[in-house]
């Protein structure tokens, strides 16, 4: 009898456990169906530059030395439009009796002032640019001198696709095989993958072989479309191909 009781108890626990499991499963299924979470976008991931860029803090005192200057200069800039020479000129026009030397002097003075103001402006601009050049964490989203993370993966993936694409078009006549020839070509492609330019950069010494290399590029166009991150590089700088290596 005891045994059967224990069995019954065990059975009860089992049934409860099953019901609980089903309930949890249902809960998650409903959540997944009716409240879908946002898909994780790899493309939109923020690129974090791990290259050792200096912290913002130590940089702050540096611009301090330079920053005050533009601050002092900016108020100077405002009086700059003071039409100092203009009243002079108006006065001259009204009086008509002041000698030319005086006029000249005042004009020169005005010009000097204007030049000085211009110089100050230029200096300020320069300093602002220099300040902008100061790279510190947070003020810069560089493209990264070393590819890393997702971009590196995307880059490698694209190169692999480019390579297999060209390979599928690379064929030569049988009589050209085993001649131990090598050529290099430089290619630029549009964001749509079409050839913008192609140029043999290292000739094989056998014109027919070079022709085959050029013909392969022509046959292979359009190439796989580069992603936005690489399209400028591929259109401006392009890539080099070694046939066969």
């Amino acid at each position, binding site marked *: 009898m005891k045994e059967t009781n224990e069995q019954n108890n065990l059975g009860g626990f089992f049934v409860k456990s099953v019901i609980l499991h089903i309930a949890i499963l249902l809960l998650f299924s409903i959540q997944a169906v009716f409240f879908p979470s946002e898909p994780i976008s790899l493309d939109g991931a923020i690129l974090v530059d791990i290259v050792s860029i200096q912290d913002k803090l130590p940089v702050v005192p540096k611009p301090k030395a330079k920053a005050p200057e533009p601050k002092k200069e900016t108020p100077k800039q405002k009086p700059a439009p003071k039409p100092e020479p203009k009243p002079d000129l108006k006065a001259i026009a009204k009086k008509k009796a002041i000698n030319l030397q005086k006029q000249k002097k005042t004009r020169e003075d005005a010009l000097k002032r204007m030049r000085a103001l211009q110089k100050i402006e230029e200096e300020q601009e320069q300093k602002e640019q220099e300040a902008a050049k100061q790279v510190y964490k947070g003020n810069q989203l560089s493209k990264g001198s070393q590819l890393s993370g997702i971009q590196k993966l995307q880059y490698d993936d694209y*190169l692999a696709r480019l390579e297999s694409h060209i390979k599928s078009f690379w064929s030569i006549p049988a009589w050209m095989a085993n001649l131990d020839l090598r050529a290099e070509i430089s290619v630029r492609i549009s964001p749509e993958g079409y050839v913008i330019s192609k140029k043999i950069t290292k000739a094989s010494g056998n014109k027919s072989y070079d022709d085959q290399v050029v013909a392969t590029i022509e046959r292979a166009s359009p190439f796989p479309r580069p992603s936005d991150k690489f399209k400028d590089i591929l259109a401006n700088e392009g890539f080099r191909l070694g046939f066969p*290596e």
Partner: protein
Amino acid sequence: MKILFMLLLLVPQLALAEKIYIKVGNASVKKSMFALPAFQFSGSTVSSPNYVRVGSELYKTLQNDLDVSYFFDFVDRKAFLEDPATTALRPKPSAPNGFLFSNWRSIGTEFLYRAAYNIKANKIEVEAYLYHVPKGETLVARKYTGDVGSENEIAHTMANDIIFRLTGKKGIFKTKLVFSSDRDAVCPKKSPNCTKWKEIYVSDYNVKNVTRITRQRTISISPAWAPDGKSVLYTSYAYHPKTKQRNPDLFSYELDTKKSFLISWRKGVNSGATYTPDGDNIFLTITKGGNADIYRTDKDGQKLRNITNGPLGALNVEPAISPDGKSIAFSSDRHGNPMIYIMDINGKNVKRITKAGKYNSTPSWSPDGENLVFAGFDNGHFDLFLVSKDGINLTRLTKAKKTNGKWSNNEDPSFSPDGRHIVFVSDRSGKKQLYMISPDGKNERRLTFDNDNYFKPKWSYMME
């Protein structure tokens, strides 16, 4: 200042761009479409009644040579858009009646060969042109002359010119083979064993133009070319009147003078001889005191020096000198089953090359000195195998069944001087016939079609 600033921003991109370099790798290889219309006869059909035979011989030989190069597929004659019999050999507009490149381009022709021949005073004259059709370019323009009867040679020269023009490398179509065969063994009434007679023959690479060079009425085997192609070595069971016995002696035969010279007649076997690439020395197998060892002599059979020495009772046979003259491949059963070994030319530094199989023999070097082809006994029959000189990359080249369903023997391989072919013996037809194959195991091709037997073919060096 602004420009500098822009440049600084671009630096990482430039660095990235410089890194994009792709090695495309080896190309896939395709055959080129070759149009080979019939040759025009430009002479008088009345004065040259043999013009059809001459023209057909020229054409067939050239076509076969081009086919053997494995560079081309031929454009079907039915696809021709113009009649090559009525259009001139040169293109329009330079020839008023000339052919049009467009007619050939539109049917996918890459190369067009146009030729005409004439027969005057028993001399054949051929005028021939090779065109690269897509570019409309003349690649070969040549005249050939030769006696009636030399059609094969003329055609081989034409084929060599085509190959040389395209690849910059010499064609093999004027190279020769030397081999042993029973094809002339006629049974005299008193010699029931006559079928064992084998003589030595020289032929074109395609086993046409066959010339018997021995008339020993015995077994003549293991021929080998001198590097200059002017003489061959062979072993013949020569009769020695003093001892009243036959002994396998080594002879040299001069093709120009048609004379044989005795080189080595030491008691026992004097066989498996080969010249060094400079032609100054001969390496061969001599049995002394029951041991088969490799010896070196000068080309007159003097100054004998042993290169291998045992071990006792071991065979050291079939020396093959590497193209650089620095090493010898040979077969030996010094470690049990016969295997391929390589040693220095002086017999030092013996290295075992093959380890698998029960019986590996008859090594032949590829002309670049990188590989060896040999016959290996596997599953009850011989097949050709290729192995690098380091003993790696062992590849089987042949596998063929006889008509009775049993596996055939494929043996006695010899590389062509351009390294693109291997001639060998196969008994797949029931008789030992000559075949050729590419070193990648493709393009197997039968060379002889008779009921005779052929043995130990050796491909010559380049003849010109």
